[in-house]
C-alpha cells in the first residue's frame, strides 16, 4: 500500500519495460546479426524493416541498450551545451575588473590626499573603500560572477557532469546554463532525459536485483551446507525455487559499502575530508545534490589534466550508484511487501480475536 512517487514512476515504466524486455531477451541475441542481414537482403522490405525496427527497439530496452542510450544521451548533451555555453561572455567579469580598478584608484587617491600620514584616518578610509568593494563584489557574485571564464567552466567533463546532473535530477548547480537558449534547451533536455533515465533506473535495478538475489541465494546455500543441519532445507529451495527474500540489511550493507568506496575514492582524489566525502556521496546518491562539493569543479583549483578522468569516473560512479539504489529499492520493496502481508494477516487475526471476545461478552450479557 505504501508507495512512493518513485514507485509511481516505476510502475509506469516497469510495465512497459518488462514487456519490451520479454521481447528483448529473446531478441537481443540475434539483434546485431539480424540487423546486418536485413540491410543486405531486402526481399520483403516492409517486413524486414519492421522486424529490424522491432529488434532494434527490443535491444534498446535491454540493459546494454538503455545504458548505452543514457551514456550517449549524456555525451550528446555535453557537446551541445558546451558549444552553446562556451561562447557566453560573463558580463560580471568586466564588472569585477572595473571594481578592481575603481578600488585601486580610490585607495591611490586616499593615499595621495592630505591626511595620508594620519594613520587612523587612512585606515578608516581604506576600510570604507574596501567595504564598498566587498559589497559590490558580493553583488556581482550573486549575479553570476564565478571567478572563471565560461570557456574554462564548460570543459567537456564539466558539461558531462552537468548533463548527468540534469537528467538524474541531482542538480549540483556548480555549472549552470546562462544563455536563454541554454536554459530552454536544459528544459527540453530534462523533459526527454528524465524518462530515459527512469527507464535506465528501473532496468538496472531489476538486473542488479536479480543478480544480487542469485548471488545471495548461492551464498545462502553455501553457508547452509556448511552448517549441515539445515542441509535438507537448503537443498530443497533450489528445486521448487521459492524465492529467498534478500533481507534489507544485506541491501543496506551493499549501499554502505558503496558509499564507503566512494568516500575513500573522493577523499584520496580530491583531498577532501572523509566526512565531506561521505556527505558528498550520500547527498549525490539521494539525488539531493547540494552542490557545495563537486569533484573536479572546485572553483579555486586550477584545471589540471587529471581531473578529467576523475570526472568521468565520477560519472560512472554515480550512474552505477543509481542502479544500486534501484536494486535496493526493488529488493526492499519485495521484503516490505512480504512483511506487510504478514502484518495484515496478523492484524486480521487480531481483529477476529477481538471480535470473538466481544461476541462472547455480548452473549454472556444476554445470557444473564
Amino acid at each position, binding site marked *: *500500500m*505504501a*508507495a*512512493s*512517487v518513485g*514507485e*509511481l514512476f516505476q*510502475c*509506469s515504466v*516497469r*510495465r*512497459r519495460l518488462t*514487456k519490451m524486455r520479454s*521481447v528483448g531477451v529473446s531478441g537481443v541475441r540475434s539483434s546485431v546479426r539480424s540487423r546486418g542481414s536485413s540491410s543486405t537482403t531486402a526481399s520483403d522490405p516492409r517486413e524486414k524493416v519492421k522486424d529490424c525496427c522491432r529488434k532494434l*527497439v*527490443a535491444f534498446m530496452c535491454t540493459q546494454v541498450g538503455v545504458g548505452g542510450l543514457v551514456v550517449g544521451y549524456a555525451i550528446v548533451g555535453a557537446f551541445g551545451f558546451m558549444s552553446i555555453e562556451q561562447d557566453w561572455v560573463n558580463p560580471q567579469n568586466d564588472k569585477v575588473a572595473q571594481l*578592481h580598478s575603481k578600488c*585601486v584608484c580610490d585607495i*591611490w587617491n586616499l*593615499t*595621495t590626499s592630505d591626511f595620508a600620514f594620519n594613520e587612523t584616518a*587612512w*585606515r578608516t578610509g581604506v*576600510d570604507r573603500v*574596501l567595504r564598498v*568593494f566587498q559589497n559590490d563584489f*558580493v*553583488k556581482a557574485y550573486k549575479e553570476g560572477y564565478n*571567478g572563471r571564464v565560461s570557456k574554462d567552466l564548460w570543459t567537456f567533463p564539466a558539461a558531462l557532469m552537468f548533463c548527468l*546532473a*540534469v537528467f538524474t*535530477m*541531482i542538480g*549540483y*548547480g556548480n555549472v*549552470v546554463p546562462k544563455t*536563454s537558449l541554454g*536554459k530552454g534547451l536544459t*528544459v527540453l533536455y*530534462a523533459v526527454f532525459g*528524465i524518462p530515459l533515465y527512469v527507464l535506465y533506473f528501473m532496468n538496472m535495478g531489476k538486473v542488479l536485483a536479480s543478480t544480487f538475489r542469485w548471488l545471495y541465494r548461492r551464498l545462502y546455500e553455501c553457508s547452509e551446507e556448511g552448517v549441515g543441519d539445515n542441509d535438507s532445507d537448503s537443498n530443497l529451495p533450489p528445486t521448487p525455487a521459492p524465492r529467498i527474500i534478500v533481507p534489507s540489511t544485506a541491501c543496506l550493507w551493499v549501499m554502505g559499502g558503496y558509499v564507503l568506496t566512494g568516500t575513500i575514492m573522493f577523499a584520496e582524489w580530491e583531498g577532501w575530508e572523509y566526512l*565531506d566525502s*561521505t556527505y558528498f556521496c*550520500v*547527498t549525490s546518491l*539521494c*539525488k539531493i*545534490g*547540494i*552542490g*557545495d562539493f563537486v569533484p573536479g569543479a572546485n*572553483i*579555486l583549483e586550477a584545471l589540471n589534466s587529471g581531473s578529467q578522468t576523475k570526472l568521468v569516473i565520477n560519472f560512472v560512479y554515480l550512474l552505477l550508484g543509481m542502479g544500486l539504489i534501484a536494486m535496493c529499492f526493488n529488493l526492499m520493496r519485495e521484503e516490505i511487501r512480504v512483511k506487510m502481508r504478514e502484518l495484515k494477516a496478523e492484524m486480521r487475526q487480531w*481483529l477476529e480475536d*477481538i*471480535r470473538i471476545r*466481544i*461476541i462472547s461478552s*455480548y452473549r454472556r450479557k444476554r*445470557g444473564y
Partner: protein
Amino acid sequence: MLDDPEDVAPGRCSTFLHYTWKLCSCVFSHVILVSLVVSYCIMGAFTFQSLEKNNEIKVKRNISKIRFNVTEDLWILFQGSEVLIEDAWTGKVRDRLKAFEQDLLRSMKSDGWDGTEDEAAVQWSFAGALFYSIIVITTIGYGHIAPKTQWGKVVTIFYAILGIPLMLLCLSNIGDVMAQSFRFLYWRVCCYVCTRKPKRGMSRRGRSIRGSSRQSGARYSGRSRTASFRRSARTSQRSADSALGLSECRSSYSDTDCRYYDDGDRDLVTMGRSNRASQHSRFSDTVLQVSSHRPAVLEPGSGAGSDDVLQGLDVPAAPVLSNKYALQCEERRSNTLPRGVNSATTKNSSSTDRLAVEKDGNRQQHHLAVDMSPPPPPLPPSPTPQTRDSQKSSVRSRGAYSGSYSGSGQHRYHGIEHRQPSPCRPRIMSPMGFAISRQQTQRQPKSPRLSRLREDADYDDCVDYFVDYDYDDYSSGPPSRSKPVPIWLCVFLVVTYILCGAVLFTKWEKWNFLDSAYFCFITLTTIGFGDFVPAKRVQNKDATVSIALCSLYLLFGIALLAMSFNLVQEEVINSVKSVAKRLGIVKDDEDDEE
C-alpha cells in the same frame, strides 16, 4: 438459541470493525502522515538552526578580520615604499585586492557566507533552516545554503536518509487523494454537462414525450451519481488548479453536446442493434477474456450483488445503482422492439424490488417511445433471446470496459455474441458488470498498488461509464478513445502550474519571465540547480514570506506532479503499447507481463 446472536452479532460487528478500520487507515494515511512530515521538517529546522547558526555568525565575523588584514597589509605596503610611484604601487595594491577577492570567494563558496556582515540577518534563521530541511527531503537541493559544520553534515546525511522515504510516502499519498478527487471532479463536470444538456435540447426541440423519458433518465443518472460519489465527495472542489482544468474541460466538451443530442435522438429512433453493437465494441477489447471466465464469475457476482442490494452498503451500492441506470438505458435502447419483448425482458430481469420499481417507470417510457418511434428496420428474427443476449453482452462489455481502451474489438464482440446462444442464463445485470470488472482486474498480475489503483478506477468507471459511453456513442467524430482523464489535461495542468509559478515569481523576485519559468521547471523536477533561489539576491524583510511562498509552491507542485503521474500512467502505457503494436515492434502475443 445461543447461535442466533452469534450469527447476527459477527456481521454487524465485523462490518463495524471493518469500517472503523478503514476510517482509521484513511485518517492515518493522510492526516497523520502529513503531520508527521510537517513535524519532521520543524524538528529538522530547529536542529539545523542550532547547529549552524553559530558557525555562520563566526564566518561573518571572520570577514571583517580578513578586511582588517588587507588594510594592515596595505598600510605596511604604504609605509614600506619610500617613494610613491603610482604604477608600481597600484600594481601591488591590485595584487593584494585579487587575494582579497579570492578570500571573499572562498568564504562565500566554502564557508557559506551570505555576503552581509549584519549579524542579525543570518541565513540559518528558523525560516531558512525550515526551507533547508524541505529542500533536503524533497531532494531538490538548491545548495544556496549548506551545512558547514561537521555535525551539520552528519545530521544532514541521516536526516535525508530518513526523511526522503517519508516525504515520498506522503507525496504519493497526497497525489493519490488528489488524483481521485481530480478524476471525480473531471467526471462530475462531464456528468453535469450530460445531464443538464438534455433539458435544454428537449426544450429547444419541443419533443415533450421523449424529453420526459430523457429527463427521467437524467434523474436516474443523477441519483446514481450522487449516491456513488458521496463516498469521495470529501475532497471535492478544493484545489483551484483542478477547477481550472475542469473549466477547461467543460468548455471543450460543451461544443460536442449539440451533435451529441442530434445523433442521440436519431440513434434512438432508427438505430438497429448491430449498429449499437459496433459502438459498444469500442469498449469491449477484453471481452474475450471475461467471457471465458464467465462461469466462474457469475456465481460470486450474483451472490455479491444480492447481498449488496439487500444490505444497501455504501460502496457496492455504486455499481448497483449505476447499473440500474444502465439497465434502464438498455431498456431504452431496446425500445424499438415490440412491447411484448420488453415486458418479457422486464419480467425476467426484475431480480429485486427496486429494480422492478425502476422498470415500471421504464415500461411507461417504452410505451411512449414505441408510440413515437417508427418500426425498426433491422428486426431480429427471435427477439427475446437476442435482446437478452445483447443486453447481457453489452453489460459485460461495460464491466470489461474499465482500463482497456484500445479499440478494434468489433469482430471479437460479434464472436461472443454468436457464442452465447442459450437464452436461459440468469440475467444478473447489476452485480455482473461490477463483479466481472473486479475479477478481471484481479486476474491480471500486477503490483498491488496498481491493482489497487485499478480497483479504485473501477469504482469510478462503473459509475462514470454511462457518461463516457453516451458521449462516445453519440459523438459523430472519429472514434476517439474513451479515457479516464486525458493525458493532455494533465500535461496542461502541469504546464499551467509552471506558467502560473513563473508569473508569480516574476512579480515577486523581479526575475524575467524565462528565468522564472526555468526556475519553476528546475524546481518541480527536483533538479534544483540553485542559480535562482527565492530570497537569495535581495536580503529584505520579505525573505521569510518569499521562502514560505516558494516552499508552498514547490510542495504543492510536487504533489501535483505525483497526481499527474497517477492519472497518466495507465494512459501512457496503453498508448505506448498500442503504438508499439501498430508499428509491429511488439507482437500481440507478447502482451502478458511478468
